């Protein structure tokens, strides 16, 4: 019997010839990622009684969650991190002018095929789009890796999604992942390794694939893996921090717990309605819902392809006077690209505000928190009650196309009207 990607990589990283589903293994990750929560991790780390981190070269820290800081608490938090980074000689440290962690890791070449990356952020699953095994852990666990270089993991069962067909114009991978999460539920894939395969995935850009891996955790998955191909290898060519990475694939005859088959040919635009990600509706069901704010950005959909798509719709149009449209490119690299391509002018002329790359109001810390009773449509990955800083507000999740189309009309709108 063949082995799945998850089984193969966990065997490799735990130094065993073979592992079984359900087994607990101790692995040595290639990288451990953390962000603004690194200050809290450093406190836990210091409580363990180890003087210095054992693996400074494996630690990647990005300041992104509230950057620049909104008040003295956030500022002191960043300060603690900077001091810790200096003291421990951590080289892979990225300041507030870099971008959102899940965009920065791939850009800086840490997310490569066959890498094992653990991050103290649930959307660490994003790097599965590059053929890495990557998943979220807690702060104590990150501290434990800083102190020992190791952590325990359970070998997961694997689900496979075989996706075929071509998207209609105006439909994106976001609509598809929302549909999948709506169908199988927020707990549909708890603890499972998930693999996305099929011609549709192969034809997707890396950006589109990352939406899938990013949101795999919203159905409970441990990882969201895709078979790396030429697109991945090419992207990594001048970035990868490990030139000799070894690609790991699932065996042809690997054993899957479940296989789902999906055809996207007649997929329609979807949104997740308040207050859960699996409360998925066809845009036609909620069309006309008035909105106050629209958010284009986050680690889910703040990439250049997303901005281009949004700009294509916004070009020559004004957003509704009752709507604030906030644009957060996911990284400085994307920010510069968008600027050079002239997208900023289109955004600004439409009435949007362009913000600096960071998480922004995605987690309700600053920059665009909602008022009581307000409604936001966002390209993010979560719409929980209170997520954007106010439990009396309402968040819809949709594709970049749906978000800007809705910003123009001032109400939730089918983006296909603009194609």
């Amino acid at each position, binding site marked *: 019997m063949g082995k799945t990607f998850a089984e193969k990589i966990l065997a490799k990283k735990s130094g065993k010839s073979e592992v079984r589903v359900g087994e*607990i293994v101790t692995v040595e990750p290639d990288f451990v990622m953390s962000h*603004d*929560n690194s200050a*809290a991790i450093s406190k*836990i780390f210091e*409580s*363990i*009684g*180890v003087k210095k981190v054992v693996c400074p070269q494996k630690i990647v820290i990005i300041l992104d*969650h*509230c950057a620049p800081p909104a008040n003295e*608490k*956030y500022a002191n*938090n960043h300060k603690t991190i900077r001091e810790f980074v200096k003291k421990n000689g951590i080289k892979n440290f990225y300041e507030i002018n870099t971008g959102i962690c899940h965009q920065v890791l791939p850009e800086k070449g840490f997310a490569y095929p066959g890498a094992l990356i653990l*991050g*103290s*952020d*649930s959307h*660490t699953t994003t790097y599965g789009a590059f053929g890495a095994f990557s*998943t*979220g*852990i*807690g*702060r*104590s*666990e990150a*501290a*434990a890796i800083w*102190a*020992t270089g190791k952590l*325990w993991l359970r070998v997961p069962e694997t689900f496979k999604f075989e996706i075929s067909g071509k998207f209609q114009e105006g439909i994106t991978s976001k609509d598809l992942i929302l549909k999948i999460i709506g169908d199988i*539920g*927020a*707990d549909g894939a*708890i*603890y499972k390794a998930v693999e996305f395969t099929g011609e549709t995935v192969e034809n997707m850009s890396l950006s589109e694939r990352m939406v899938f891996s990013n949101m795999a955790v919203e159905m*409970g998955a*441990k990882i969201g893996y895709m078979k790396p191909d030429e697109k991945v290898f090419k992207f990594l060519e001048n970035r990868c921090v490990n030139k000799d990475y070894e690609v790991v694939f699932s065996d042809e005859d690997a054993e899957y717990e479940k296989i789902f088959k999906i055809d996207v040919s007649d997929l329609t635009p979807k949104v997740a309605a308040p207050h*859960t990600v*699996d409360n998925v509706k066809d845009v036609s069901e909620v069309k006309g819902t008035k909105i106050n704010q629209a958010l284009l950005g986050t680690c889910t959909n703040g990439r250049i392809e997303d901005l281009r798509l949004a700009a294509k719709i916004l070009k020559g149009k004004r957003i509704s006077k009752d709507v604030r449209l906030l644009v957060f490119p996911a990284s400085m690299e994307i920010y510069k690209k968008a600027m050079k391509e002239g997208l900023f002018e289109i955004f600004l002329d439409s009435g949007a505000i362009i913000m600096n790359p960071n998480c922004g109001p995605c*987690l*309700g*810390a600053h920059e665009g928190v909602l008022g009581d009773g307000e409604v936001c449509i966002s390209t993010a990955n*979560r719409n*929980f*009650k*209170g*997520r954007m*800083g106010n*439990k009396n507000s309402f968040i819809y999740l949709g594709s970049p196309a749906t978000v800007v189309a809705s910003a123009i009309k001032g109400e939730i709108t089918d983006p296909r009207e603009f194609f």
Partner: protein
Amino acid sequence: MTKIKGKVWKYGDDINTDVIFPGKYTYTVTDFNEMAKHALEDLDPNFSKEVKRGDVIVAGYNFGCGSSREQAASCLVSAGVGAVIAKSFSRIFFRNAINWGLPVITNSQIQDLVKKGDEIEVDLEEGKIYLKGKEFTFPPLRDEVKEILDAGGLINYLKKKLKEGK
């Protein structure tokens, strides 16, 4: 601590980390006692005022889904919660709970029977739940995981290991 005894706090499915511990506090509320006051704030404002040491949360599917924030587990510990029993747990919450020494028990038989305020007893060693004169079993945790739980969480476990020179 193998026996837990207290009153039941009952909730439904998909209790997410934002309602257990709101994201807006993750960088501003760091004091353990202070954290306890915000536990489940957006879901049940009475919880933090009335919860007693040893109380048990009983919930449905996917408890703790959402963010990786560890405070979702640690705020429950600091509020005195003795254990969480749910039909299923989100993966990261499950890990965080173990790593904070909070027993997490997967069981789907008791949800329809209990209501808020019922007396409940859990024996971790035996893998048993005692409720209204009835007895329910749950699969014991794997040894590797139990060791961490027994030590009072991952950090205490590591400290212990370091002391032993391992």
